[in-house]
């Protein structure tokens, strides 16, 4: 091609492409903006219900939880974020029983890998959606999850196999959680057996 024509046509193709770019930003100027105004939109903010923020131990109205202090979560945690301390107590019928004393979780070292939750045989712990975890004091990151004075949920649950009990609880749960539990059930049984094996030894 004639270099002069090439020179001139080069200018025009360049201009055309540049204007194409300008058009994109021009259209963007009038579009709805994507910024979320965070503290103001607290009310309308939707956090996915599977979002992992803080580990917590659900307590029922009688201040009872489901943790048997078996320590599986502690052993499974890759970073030593969970510390479970337990006492041995003697029940009325003379059997020795492990009772949860302190369940301490360190927000600062947790990597939210969910291993503790999926391996827990009694579904005693869960991650909640409370994502506002900023703290002024580092010591506040280390938390005791069992409430003072709380105890293990008694009832027939201990004697019954774990799975049917959960099955009964299912319909009331959110659909997302349902699936989580289904997965846990078979593993939980095995883990239960294993932990009892350990105790026997």
């Amino acid at each position, binding site marked *: 091609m004639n270099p002069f024509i090439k020179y001139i046509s080069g200018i025009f193709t360049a201009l055309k492409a540049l204007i194409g*770019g300008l058009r994109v*930003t021009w259209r963007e100027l009038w579009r709805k903006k994507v910024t979320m105004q965070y503290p103001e939109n607290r009310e309308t903010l939707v956090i996915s219900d599977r979002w992992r923020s803080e580990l917590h131990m659900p307590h029922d109205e009688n201040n009872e939880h489901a943790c048997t202090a078996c320590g599986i979560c502690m052993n499974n945690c890759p970073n030593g974020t969970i510390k479970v301390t337990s006492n041995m107590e003697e029940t009325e019928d003379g059997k020795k029983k492990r009772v949860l004393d302190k369940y301490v979780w360190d927000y600062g070292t947790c990597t939210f890998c969910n291993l503790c939750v999926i391996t827990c045989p009694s579904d005693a712990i869960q991650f909640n959606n409370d994502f506002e975890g900023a703290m002024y004091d580092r010591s506040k990151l280390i938390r005791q999850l069992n409430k003072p004075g709380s105890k293990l949920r008694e009832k027939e649950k201990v004697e019954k196999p774990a799975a049917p009990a959960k099955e009964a609880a299912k319909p009331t749960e959110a659909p997302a959680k349902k699936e989580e539990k289904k997965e846990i059930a078979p593993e939980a049984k095995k883990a239960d057996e294993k932990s009892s094996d350990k105790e026997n030894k």
Partner: protein
Amino acid sequence: MNYNQPLELTGLVSNLHEFFRDNLSPFWATLVEGALVLLALLTLYAVIALALIYIERKITAFFQSRLGPNRLGKYGVIQSIADMIKILIKEIIHIKEVDKFLFYAAPFFVIVSSMLTFGAIPFGQGLQAVDFNIGIVYVLATSSIGIIGVLLAGWSSNNKYSMLGAMRSGAQFISYELSAGFALMTVVVLSGTMQLSEIVESQRYAWNIFNGHILALIAFIIYLISGHAETNRGPFDLPEAEGELTAGYHTEYSGLQFGFFYLAEYLNMFIIASIATTVFLGGWMPIQIKGWDAFNQIMWYIPSYVWFFGKAGFLVFLSLWVRWTFPRMRIDLLLNLEWKYLLPINLINIIVMVVMVLMGWTLSDWFPALFGN
């Protein structure tokens, strides 16, 4: 034809002038007037810079589908004032092993250069501090002092990044100063004067960009590009190029010294827009059509300084639009653009313009009834 101009400031200015002449000796009157003009200009300088910073942040955000500053005051309008206060009270970090004198002098070169240029701009009817008969040459001369500051800053910082930034800046500025100068000269040929007030006056019925049609339009575009390049703003922001040189020539500056560079950058953007407005878009002159007195009267109700800031604001918006759309040039592309495209086109343009003016091919020559002064 005299139109009613209720909001114009010419009356106030001449009243003040007479008041001082009547009450003070000529020496003191000149001194006080000078001080007042200086004060007014400095205030305007700061206010425009702050407004521009706010506007840029807001418009940039809109281009990028964000909201921009919106926390401080309604729509965040106080944000840049808060930023100014912050920058004023920030510590100036003293760096070891810099060339102290040059290091501290550099920001002043930059800011003084932009202030000198700023003083010569006609903001409105009668609102011009100095009106040289070589106004355009003066503007070109003073605005190029700034490069000395940039070079000094880069050299004296004792920092390799700053040094590279300054060197790029030097090459860039010298190249684009040529184009900017030639583009303005094209208009000087067209208007036959270098005095800014006369250039504005000559555009009463036909802005230069229309009067000189194609050629003036080419000159206008070239001036916008080279002016944009002179202000070191994207896509020509190579001297600072935050991606590669961290902050280029002002990497080592902090606090108010950095503030000077920052302020000057925004003001230069405005100055380029103002000069383009004055020279190509009729300056503060309202839109007027020969013979339509009623229409002209309505246009004159809008004061001249509003016209001026409106036109300049439009050009500033163009500059922001370009800046936030295009990626950064590379130094060789930048010089290519100047020496292989802008400058040759410009040179041909100026020659053709001379021929055009001599042959009487301008709009005002063709249709004197409509566009002639």
